[in-house]
C-alpha cells in the first residue's frame, strides 16, 4: 500500500511522543490554561450565581446547572480523551499517550462524581427525589464505575506499560457508554431533560442565562487541560527519573 507508506502524521504528533518535549511544552502551556480557567470560571460563577435571572419554573435551583452541566460535559470528554490516548498508545506504542490517559482518570472520576452529586441535589427540589433509576443517571453511574475500574487496574499492575495497555482496552470498550449517555434522553423515556446546550442549534435560553454556562464550560475545559497536563508531567517525572534531563531539570528547581 504505497499511499499508506508515504503518509505521514504531522511533526508535532511525534514530538508529543518525547517525554522531555511534552514536559517542557506542557510547562509553557500551563500558565495560559491556568489564567483562562481562572478568568472564565470566576466570571461564570459570579454571573451565574448573582446576575442570571431565575428560571420561571425551577426558580433559583436552576443555578445548579452552572456547575452540573460543565461537570457532566467534562466527565464524558475526559473519558473519550482517555480512550483516544489509550488507543494512540496501543497503536503507536507511545509511552506519553498512556501517561496522558493515566492523568485523565482521577480528574475524570472526580468530575463524574460532581455531576452525580450536583444532579442528585438538583433532583430533590425539581423532581422530588435525590435519585431515580433513569437511563441518563444510570449510564453516568456506570461511567463512574468504569473510571474506578481503570484506576483500580492502574493500581493493581506495577508494570506501567502493561497497565497502560490494559487500561487502554478498558477505556476503549468503556467508551461505548458515552453515546449511550448522550442519547439516553432520546432513546428512552427519561425524567432527565434533554440537552440545554448543543453546538448546532440556537440555545433555548436567553443570553443572560446561557452566557454564564458557556463561560463555565470553557473555564472547566481549561482547568481540566491544566490538570491533565500537570498529571502527565508528574507521570513523566515519576517514570523518567533515570533520564539525565530530569537530573538537569531538578538542579534548577
Amino acid at each position, binding site marked *: 500500500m504505497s499511499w499508506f507508506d508515504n503518509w505521514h502524521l504531522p511533526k508535532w504528533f511525534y514530538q508529543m511522543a518525547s517525554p522531555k518535549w511534552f514536559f517542557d511544552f506542557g510547562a509553557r502551556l500551563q500558565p495560559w490554561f491556568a489564567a483562562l480557567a481562572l478568568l472564565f470560571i470566576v466570571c461564570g460563577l459570579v454571573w451565574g450565581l448573582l446576575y442570571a435571572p431565575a428560571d420561571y419554573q425551577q426558580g433559583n435551583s436552576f443555578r445548579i446547572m452552572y456547575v452540573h452541566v460543565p461537570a457532566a460535559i467534562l466527565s464524558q470528554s475526559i473519558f473519550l480523551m482517555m480512550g483516544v490516548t489509550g488507543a494512540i498508545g496501543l497503536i503507536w506504542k507511545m509511552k506519553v499517550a498512556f501517561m496522558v490517559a493515566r492523568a485523565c482518570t482521577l480528574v475524570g472520576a472526580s468530575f463524574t462524581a460532581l455531576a452525580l452529586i450536583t444532579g442528585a441535589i438538583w433532583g430533590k427540589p425539581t423532581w422530588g427525589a435525590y435519585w431515580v433509576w433513569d437511563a441518563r443517571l444510570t449510564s453516568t453511574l456506570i461511567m463512574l464505575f468504569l473510571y474506578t475500574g481503570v484506576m483500580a487496574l492502574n493500581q493493581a499492575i506495577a508494570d506501567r506499560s502493561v497497565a497502560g495497555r490494559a487500561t487502554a482496552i478498558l477505556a476503549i470498550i468503556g467508551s461505548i457508554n458515552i453515546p449511550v449517555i448522550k442519547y439516553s434522553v432520546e432513546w428512552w423515556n427519561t425524567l432527565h431533560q434533554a440537552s440545554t446546550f448543543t453546538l448546532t442549534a440556537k440555545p433555548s435560553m436567553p443570553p443572560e442565562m446561557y452566557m454564564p454556562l458557556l463561560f463555565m464550560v470553557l473555564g472547566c475545559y481549561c482547568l481540566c487541560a491544566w490538570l491533565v497536563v500537570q498529571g502527565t508531567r*508528574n507521570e513523566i517525572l515519576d517514570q523518567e527519573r533515570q533520564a539525565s534531563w530530569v537530573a538537569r531539570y531538578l538542579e534548577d528547581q
Partner: protein
Amino acid sequence: MYFTSFEQLISMDGHGFYVWFCYACFVLLVAGNIWAAKHRQQRLVKQIKSQLRR
C-alpha cells in the same frame, strides 16, 4: 444583580441550601484536584532529588 438583599441571596427563595451546597462541592473538588497535582509534583521532586544525591 438579581437579588435585592443579602438574606435573599443566601436563602434563594428556599433553594439556597441546594444551590450553595453544589457550588461548595465544585469549589472543593477543583481545589482538591489542584492540590493533589501540585502535592504529587513536590513529593516527586523531593524524592528524586534525594535519590540523585545518593
